[in-house]
């Protein structure tokens, strides 16, 4: 029996996992990181566009601060997010950017003087002040009031991931690569680590830890058409679900990104539109202003994606052999801008489409992109229902994003959550609750149980093909649990997925070798992924309203009266074929920003009974505080300081701000 002991086990070597690991390590604890792939290959590397943080350095970011970022985030989430968390996040994001700057991320910097940019299809001259010269620049992104998205050309995630990963090396944190957590070791509501499968040899090892953190990223691969990497299969979330103790939040909240190249599904960044790119239809007509006269191409992603699909349905799509698509036009940005700030986009267009985006239009169509849902945690990143288990990054439902995440808020979330969770895990490990009390009998039982499952697959007499089930599931999800959802489609999807889940228990393999066996990997993963897919489809079926990215054609209105709540899915019994759903109400009475219109998209929400009251209360507080500074007012509205680890409490300085 192979057991490895450590203080902190971090499952996932993406931005979130690495940053959390560095934090815990710097507090003096032993940390081991597990990853399916070398950490620098994690999908965080694919983030192109940028990271939001209210530095307020550029002219177009003037006046930006935590408050504005907070409001954008909450509106973006369609009021689905946890506002405490959003506050925590917007407060820490500037520190995260600055920390990354110190760690070597070559953020694009502001050049003083005049600069031509494209806004709303027109050339505009912006003038940056001398004082801002050399400070971190920002670009425009969807759903934001200010230019707030810090970027490194269009390789932001890459530059960030490399900087953080190098810090992990500097801290001598061991990363055990090609190791996959396949189950959590837990008992009585306490998590003790994970059972881990070596993807090369097939061996199982138990990693026993005082604190375990799941930072395994999103689960986009339950869809056929997705911008996600092929390793984004959500196994981290699935093993939390399989404990029966932890729960997954808001799994039906799945984001579709407007611009992935057609048909490959490879993303071209929102920065394309942020920098001035336009969406056009078959006739060459710029259609977004027709639908969204205010934010146009730069409404939030859920809105733009829906409008695009709507436009295609209305018969304006470009027909091609693979189906219909629309055009993204960035030719107006000019070759120099594209070569400098959109190089990955250019490379992708060259290699996958054989076109030059400075001269040709890019064929695009929305595709699955981001999982707002995940392991439900509290504001400290501690998983609900399982002590000693933490989660951060896309794998978590910390609930910063609610039902729609803003572009640039995700990589920001990964590092911010990593910073906070790193500290919080260290606190936990140092506390009495963090004591390691685990019997080897339990560990052995967990190992044996997992081994038995693998042996059944390897040597059982199943006849189903994992690859086939995977393909079916992906088709169902893309066709029936997509951008436009209806009860009918969702119902069919749930039925079929249940069928697949039953079949997945009878998978048989052609290759019986225990290690280095991709067929085996597909087999056990599809079993887990089907559960996630069911959480998504079933959650979507139950949620009879439209909110953020979750759009029900049969219930097109946001219904705060009955649905201002978070879906919590659990899977207590392995023989269930549906998750158990519970709901957690969002407390309007404690919100800093009560539900309202987002400023784009539909304006037809059904109001929550407490909204008016809270709004009046807020008005009263604001007027009572009169000329007090914004921090004091904010404190009065919704205090959140107690949630910030001490070392991140300071106030963020901004060039234009005196405080």
């Amino acid at each position, binding site marked *: 029996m*192979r057991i*490895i*002991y*450590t203080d902190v086990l971090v499952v996932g070597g993406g931005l979130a996992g690495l940053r959390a690991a560095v934090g815990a*390590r*710097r507090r*003096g604890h*032993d940390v*081991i990181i597990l990853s399916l792939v070398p950490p620098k290959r994690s999908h965080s590397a694919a983030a192109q566009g940028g990271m939001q943080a209210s530095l307020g350095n550029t002219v177009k970011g003037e006046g930006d601060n935590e408050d504005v970022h907070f409001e954008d985030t909450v509106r973006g989430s369609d009021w689905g997010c946890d506002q405490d968390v959003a506050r925590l996040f917007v407060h820490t994001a500037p520190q995260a950017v600055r920390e990354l700057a110190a760690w070597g991320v070559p953020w694009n910097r502001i050049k003083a003087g005049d600069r031509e940019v494209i806004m709303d299809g027109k050339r505009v001259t912006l003038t940056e002040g001398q004082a801002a010269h050399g400070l971190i620049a920002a670009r425009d992104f969807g759903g934001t009031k200010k230019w707030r998205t810090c970027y490194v050309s269009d390789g932001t995630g890459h530059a960030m991931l490399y900087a953080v990963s190098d810090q992990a090396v*500097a*801290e*001598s*944190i*061991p*990363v*055990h*690569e*090609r*190791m996959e957590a396949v189950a959590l070791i837990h008992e009585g509501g306490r998590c003790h680590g994970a059972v881990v499968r*070596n*993807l*090369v*040899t097939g*061996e199982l*090892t138990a990693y026993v830890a005082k604190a375990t953190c799941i930072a395994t990223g999103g689960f986009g691969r339950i869809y056929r058409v997705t911008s996600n990497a092929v390793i984004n299969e959500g196994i981290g979330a699935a093993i939390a679900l399989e404990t029966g103790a932890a729960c997954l939040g808001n799994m039906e909240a799945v984001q579709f990104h407007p611009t992935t190249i057609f048909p490959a599904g490879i993303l071209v960044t929102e920065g394309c539109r942020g920098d001035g790119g336009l969406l056009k239809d078959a006739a060459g007509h710029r259609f977004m202003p027709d639908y969204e006269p205010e934010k146009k191409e730069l409404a939030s992603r859920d809105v733009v994606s829906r409008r695009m699909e709507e436009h295609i349905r209305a018969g304006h799509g470009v027909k091609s052999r693979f189906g219909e698509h629309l055009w993204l036009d960035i030719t107006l940005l000019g070759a120099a801008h594209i070569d400098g700030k959109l190089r990955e986009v250019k490379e992708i267009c060259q290699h996958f489409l054989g076109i030059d985006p400075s001269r040709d239009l890019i064929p695009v169509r929305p595709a699955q992109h981001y999982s707002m849902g995940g392991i439900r945690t509290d504001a400290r990143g501690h998983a609900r229902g399982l002590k000693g288990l933490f989660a951060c990054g896309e794998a978590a439902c910390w609930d910063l994003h609610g039902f729609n995440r803003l572009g640039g808020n995700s990589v920001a979330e990964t590092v911010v959550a990593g910073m906070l969770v790193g500290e919080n895990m260290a606190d936990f490990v140092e506390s009495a609750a963090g004591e390691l009390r685990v019997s080897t009998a339990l560990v052995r039982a967990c190992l044996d149980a997992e081994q038995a499952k693998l042996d059944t697959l390897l040597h059982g007499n199943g006849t189903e093909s994992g690859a086939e089930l995977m393909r079916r599931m992906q088709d169902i999800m893309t066709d029936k649990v997509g951008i436009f959802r209806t009860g009918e489609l969702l119902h069919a999807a749930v039925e079929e997925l249940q069928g697949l889940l039953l079949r997945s228990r009878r998978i048989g393999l052609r290759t019986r070798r225990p290690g280095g066996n991709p067929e085996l990997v597909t087999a056990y993963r599809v079993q887990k992924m089907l559960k996630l897919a069911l959480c998504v489809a079933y959650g979507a079926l139950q949620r009879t309203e439209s909110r953020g990215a979750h759009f029900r054609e049969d219930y097109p209105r946001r219904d705060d009266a009955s649905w201002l709540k978070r879906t919590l899915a659990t899977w207590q019994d392995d023989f269930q074929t549906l998750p158990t759903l519970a709901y957690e109400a969002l407390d309007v009475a404690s919100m800093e920003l009560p539900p309202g219109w987002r400023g784009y998209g539909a304006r037809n929400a059904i109001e929550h009974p407490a909204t008016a009251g809270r709004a009046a209360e807020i008005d009263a507080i604001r007027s009572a505080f009169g000329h007090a500074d914004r921090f004091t007012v904010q404190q009065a509205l919704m205090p959140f300081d107690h949630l910030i680890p001490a070392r991140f409490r300071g106030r963020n300085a901004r060039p234009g701000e005196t405080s």
Partner: protein
Amino acid sequence: MDSSFDSSGIARPLAPVRPLPEAAARQAQAVPLRVRKSRWPARLDLLQSASGLFLALFLVGHMFFVSSILISKDAFYAVARFFEGAYFLAEPRPWLVSGVVGLVLTVFVAHAWLAMRKFPANFRQYKVFAEHKAQLRHGDTGLWWIQLWTGFALFFLGTVHLYGMLTQPELIGPYESADRIWTGNMWPLYLLLLFAVEVHGSIGLYRLALKWGWLEGRDPAATRRRLRVAKTAFSVFFLGLGLASLLAYVQLGIAHADKAGERYVPQRAAAVKLGELEFAVSRRPGG
């Protein structure tokens, strides 16, 4: 460096490693605990390039001198005597040539020694490289391979030639050289030597420019293309020149074969039209 990395735990069971605490690690970095690294690798690399450059430039001159035979026997004769110091000393002194040869030989040996460090050290390395080259079919990798082999050849060919020049400096002259080449059966060696050295030298210069980033300019890719053209032109020109000269020697050698061994005596010293050399030639020894 001790690696804290374990790819997958295949090899050894993983015990949690306890590295230096962060602060201590910082401390360790601040104090240079490491022994200062030898400066020699830098110097040797510079010397290798310098010696190569010297030899290459020397050869440019050398080829022009040797090709003076294409102008006339007397011209070559004059050049040969020039190097014996005939024009500034009272008397030509062939040991001067030996001296120069000695110097060149030293650089030559030094260069060969330095360059040999880059040779495959054993058969495994040799085989790996050969396979790699065949598989990759990459221009500059191929050029290095050529340089390796030409260098290897030069080791022998050049040594023979230099040894001859070192020991018999006085036997440099139109007839002397022609006889050596034809009657002395040296022409095959020279033919090989010529090809080897021109190819080696031109590739060497080209690679030298890339190695140290000379002439990079605004567009290094374009420079590299131009350098390639220059390299080929260099080879072609000097091969042409060398072949023409060698042919001239061979012809002269054939014509002079029955009188082989006879020293050359300029025929019409006063009439030789060689610009400012005219005066000097008239004072040739024994003339």
